[in-house]
């Protein structure tokens, strides 16, 4: 296979990575933007979404698409509900103090990972793809499901944009993001907005996980890489900036695809981390973040 087709394959792989990363990172960015909370448990919510997807898909009879569709509905609901519970029972009681919240979410991360290990064991578990369409190009064949992941992620991201820009809850989130005290002075129940935002962020991670499990596998430690990459994406894009998060996810996803294909996945992680260091030194607010 020549350089051109090889590059095309790398770009297609990169787009898949970027799509999943964008979904995961937008959830993290939303939570930080609205609540000023650094959610270290975000990767664990991703893992939990994948685990619920595996569980649900395994319990729905019929062709794989039924199980996968059920998982796409159930996993975000379960993970979102758990996240709301964590917000109400833990983060709110800590008054969202930044240091305390980081420690608390590290605790949530370990609890969820160990609960998954104790309940389902250390083995990686597959989830069948909802369909097995293969796209045959002149140079290589490519998974139709992977392309579907890109389209589905774009659709979900468009939905998030619509939610933020066109709905009452989005307006409440944006007002709370600007000034939570003034939001309260205008009757906004900030506690409810926070719980909803935390749930939404975790649900987006779960959706990303449901999309990715048919091309990956479910494992109790699978949240570590998405968490690291999501943090890198959010820092490069600008903390709390959804536009920046999307641009950074595209850059990191594509570079991950290309570098992994031509050199090695480890080199891609090294470069992404180096990029974060450079951004922190030369533009601490990120590419699209506002100066503090």
């Amino acid at each position, binding site marked *: 296979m020549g350089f051109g087709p090889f590059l095309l394959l790398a770009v297609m792989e990169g787009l898949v990575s970027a799509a999943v990363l964008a979904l995961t990172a937008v959830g993290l960015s939303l939570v930080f933007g609205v609540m000023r909370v650094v959610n270290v448990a975000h990767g664990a919510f991703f893992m939990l979404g994948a685990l619920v997807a595996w569980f649900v898909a395994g319990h729905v009879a019929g062709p794989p698409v039924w199980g996968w569709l059920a998982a796409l509905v159930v996993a975000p609901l379960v993970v979102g509900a758990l996240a709301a519970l964590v917000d109400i029972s833990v983060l709110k009681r800590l008054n969202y103090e930044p240091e305390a919240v980081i420690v608390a979410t590290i605790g949530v991360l370990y609890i969820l990972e160990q609960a998954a290990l104790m309940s389902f064991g250390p083995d990686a578990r597959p989830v069948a793809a909802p369909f097995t369409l293969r796209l045959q190009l002149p140079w290589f064949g490519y998974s139709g499901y992977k392309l579907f992941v890109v389209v589905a992620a774009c659709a979900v991201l468009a939905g998030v944009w619509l939610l933020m820009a066109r709905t009452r809850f989005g*307006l409440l989130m944006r007002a709370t993001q600007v*000034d939570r005290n003034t939001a309260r*002075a205008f009757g*906004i129940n900030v506690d409810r907005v926070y719980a909803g935002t935390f749930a939404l962020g975790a649900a987006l991670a779960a959706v990303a996980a449901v999309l990715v499990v048919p091309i990956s596998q479910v494992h109790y430690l699978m949240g570590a890489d998405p968490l690291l990459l999501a943090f890198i994406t959010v820092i490069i894009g600008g903390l709390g900036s959804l536009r920046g998060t999307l641009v950074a996810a595209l850059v990191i996803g594509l570079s991950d695809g290309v570098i992994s294909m031509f050199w090695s996945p480890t080199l891609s992680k090294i470069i992404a981390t180096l990029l974060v260091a450079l951004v922190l030194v030369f533009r601490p607010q990120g590419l699209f973040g506002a100066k503090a």
Partner: protein
Amino acid sequence: MLRLEGVSAGYGAVTVLRGLSFAAEAGEVTCIMGRNGVGKTTLMRAIMGQIAVSGSVRLGGEELAGLPAHEVPRRGIALVPQGRRLFGPLTVAENLEIGLMTRGKGAVTRDRVLDLFPRLRERLTQVSSTLSGGEQQMLAIARALCLEPKVLLLDEPTEGLQPSMIAAIRQVVLGLKTTGVAVVLVEQRVSAVLDMADRVAFMDHGTVAETVARADLAPGAAQFATWVGV
């Protein structure tokens, strides 16, 4: 309408309001005056439930002390905070929408408010942080009026505004009086607001030291020198 009795409040270990009592009546403008640091803004925050208080804050007989902060505006008290505190990245229309949705008000209320501030009607899609200072103050008041409040609290509304804008705000406040709204005005600039007031409450050391009917206050009355320092 609004009655505070024995209200104490502060920030952590620092007590700012010390057993303060105060009343604002429907259809009246009550002006709160005092030197910097006597607790005027803290009083506004205490009424709005933004800080914990001991004592009683009653609106038309209903006790508000202890309610969550977001419940207070739903009962009919609106605040125009010092420094405006607009939702800067949101448009003018969205800022108004925040006020409208709180008490379930709709297009009729919005139109009525925009009739008071026609300039805002021309800027509904403009991001509010890009408005001029005077327009921002108009929006801050308009946003509060979207709640159709029974009590309107204005904290330093003339701060940094040119005379024509102050005159416009005066017209709005005088109009509110006629509709039965109780207006509570915190202001340092005596000349800017005195002619609007029905009563003036002078604050000192976290209490209302003296309340005087406006009719009994001459421009150079001793109270201004004693409590405001002008």
